């Protein structure tokens, strides 16, 4: 048998009763790696962590931790720390006791525990709350205690299940930073479940995207962000705008035919395997540029013609809903265009994700997002 990875899932499948949750998961994580796990709500992220931690026995496949097969090893023997999505704080212990419990288990000295707990509290902005019971904390404070409890033991392997979801942006940034610094300094191997795309991009060495219990793509943040392997991944990584184009490969390029609401264009194939015919084109609102209708647009990519339907201000730039043919797309601009104004929307070649689509229906399994309706 070949050398195992530090953490390894080998064709793991998993079910709750009749509900198949994970299927055929193969995942290797190296020592010291920081892996972000992304996926729609309910796709099995928590379950995957629970398989790693040993609370769920996979219905098939094997798990190995530290290069040892542990599929049937009980959780307390696996030496991992898990931050529970539901926090799972011990209601009968104070904040300090919750955080210090893991150290107590390791028979660390009383005074040492106290100082470690104090450090953890101040790291997480929990100073002064040490003597409170979890019931007397706010939601975000509870979440930080849960995080502190896992971090306090300096775990070799850290599993994080949306540990920052209830924190405000500022403290989230700071905790994110501390977490990453700690992880690097101590060489912690971390698997981090998050719904925050930016968080995953900034923190992770590798991003793993789960879709309906299977791995849809894994790779570096740039990879996943810029070279999504499927329409699902593209959509999941924010390329919510979708339009259908006709085109055909030509040499190292893909030629886009002019259509009712788009000009002809050309995009480098860059190794993508696209067949002639209808392609689904996906792009991010922030990658599109809006120009007044009369402006000539240059550069590779595709140019769409449309009419501004609505404008909103999410901060920093203006977000426009644009009618393009029978679709509505979102595009940002640094100035606001008026509703009804006719515009050209240019999507640069490197921001345009093309997929041969079976129909022209977008890959949209779990969420009910109607394309083009994602605006306020």
């Amino acid at each position, binding site marked *: 048998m070949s050398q195992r990875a530090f953490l390894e899932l080998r064709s793991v499948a998993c079910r709750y009763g009749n509900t198949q949750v994970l299927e055929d998961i193969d995942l290797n994580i190296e020592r010291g790696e920081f892996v972000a796990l992304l996926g729609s709500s309910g796709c099995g992220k928590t379950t995957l962590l629970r398989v790693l*931690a040993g609370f769920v026995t996979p219905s098939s496949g094997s798990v190995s931790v530290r290069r040892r097969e542990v599929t049937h090893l009980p*959780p307390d023997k696996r030496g991992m720390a898990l931050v529970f999505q539901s926090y799972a704080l*011990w209601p*009968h212990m104070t904040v300090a006791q919750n955080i210090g419990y893991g150290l107590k288990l390791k028979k660390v000295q009383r005074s040492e525990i106290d100082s470690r707990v104090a450090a953890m509290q101040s790291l997480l902005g929990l100073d002064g709350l040490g003597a409170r019971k979890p019931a007397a904390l706010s939601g975000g404070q509870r979440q930080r205690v849960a995080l502190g*409890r896992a971090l306090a033991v300096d775990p070799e392997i850290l599993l994080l299940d949306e540990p920052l979801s209830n924190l405000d942006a500022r403290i989230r940034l700071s905790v994110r930073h501390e977490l990453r610094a700690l992880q690097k300094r101590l060489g912690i191997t971390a698997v981090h479940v998050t719904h925050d795309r930016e968080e995953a991009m900034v923190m992770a060495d590798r991003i793993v995207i789960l879709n309906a219990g299977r791995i849809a793509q894994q790779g570096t943040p740039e990879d996943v962000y810029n070279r999504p392997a499927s329409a699902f991944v593209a959509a999941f990584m924010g390329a919510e705008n979708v339009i259908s184009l006709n085109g055909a490969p030509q040499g190292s390029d893909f030629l886009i035919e002019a259509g009712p609401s788009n000009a002809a264009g050309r995009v480098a194939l860059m190794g993508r395997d696209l067949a002639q015919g209808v392609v689904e084109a996906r792009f991010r609102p922030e990658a599109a540029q809006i120009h007044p209708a009369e402006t000539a647009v240059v550069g590779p990519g595709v140019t769409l013609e449309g009419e501004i339907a609505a404008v909103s201000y999410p901060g920093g730039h203006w977000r426009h809903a644009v009618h393009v043919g029978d679709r509505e797309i979102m595009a940002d601009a640094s100035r606001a265009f008026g509703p009804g104004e006719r515009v050209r929307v240019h999507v640069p070649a490197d921001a345009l994700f093309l997929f041969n689509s079976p129909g022209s229906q977008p890959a949209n399994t779990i969420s009910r997002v109607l394309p083009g309706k994602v605006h306020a």
Partner: protein
Amino acid sequence: MSKRLLGLLLVLPALAVIAALFILPLIMSAVGAFRVEGGAFGLDNFAKTFDLYTKDIIFTVVIVSLSTVLIGIGAVAIGGYLTLGENPKAVAILRWLYRWPMFIPFIVVGQILRTFLSKNGMMNNTAVSLGLITPLDAVSFLDWRGIVIAFVWKQTPFVALLVAGAMASINRDTIEAARNLGASKLRLLFEIIVPQVAVTLTVGLILSFVTMMSVLSVPLMINAQSPTMLTADIAFRVNAYGDYGVANALGLVSLVLASSVAWIYLRQSLKERA
């Protein structure tokens, strides 16, 4: 309506039943404890009580406390296994097994344990026939140990049932969180699970304590030696002498003992609520 008033209104019916059916008659009879010969009031009955029965009072407290501790340990062990046990078959077996004694009335407990625990009872007979001991080694447990065994035998399932129910309803995640940090089963049980069911456990133990304080048949049927339990003394005072004065004094002593245990708990829980 204020919360306090509403609260009082809700407890009132139950309180009224207790007051009318027990506390009132109790007062009617308990004033007897302070009545000395000739109908005047005094503490003679208490003097006599402590003169004759101090040893029995201590005996009762020790026996009942010891039993309570053992019951607590047993109930936690059973509840813990039912909650943490990994083999579903073993858990099912235990679940099926442990409850039986609960259904046996105390008086029958006395009877069957008398025949089970005595020197030539079923326990020793079985041990002898299995070759574990010789007939000469057989000892009778029909003394204070018999009482303790009878109490533990009958009351453990009661507390275990309560505790196991409470344990089943604690958040599993909190257990998993501790396992995840490497807590052994034993630590899980005592540091995570038991504290979370502490209220139920204590309530069960107090109810047991109080029940055991008031059982007459077990001491009568298993151990009539001296010292014996207060209930036996009370029955004796009444039946042999028709002496309600000392009997009621003994009753008050027993009430004070039981209430003080409950009081400690109530004060503790009051602190936690605040």
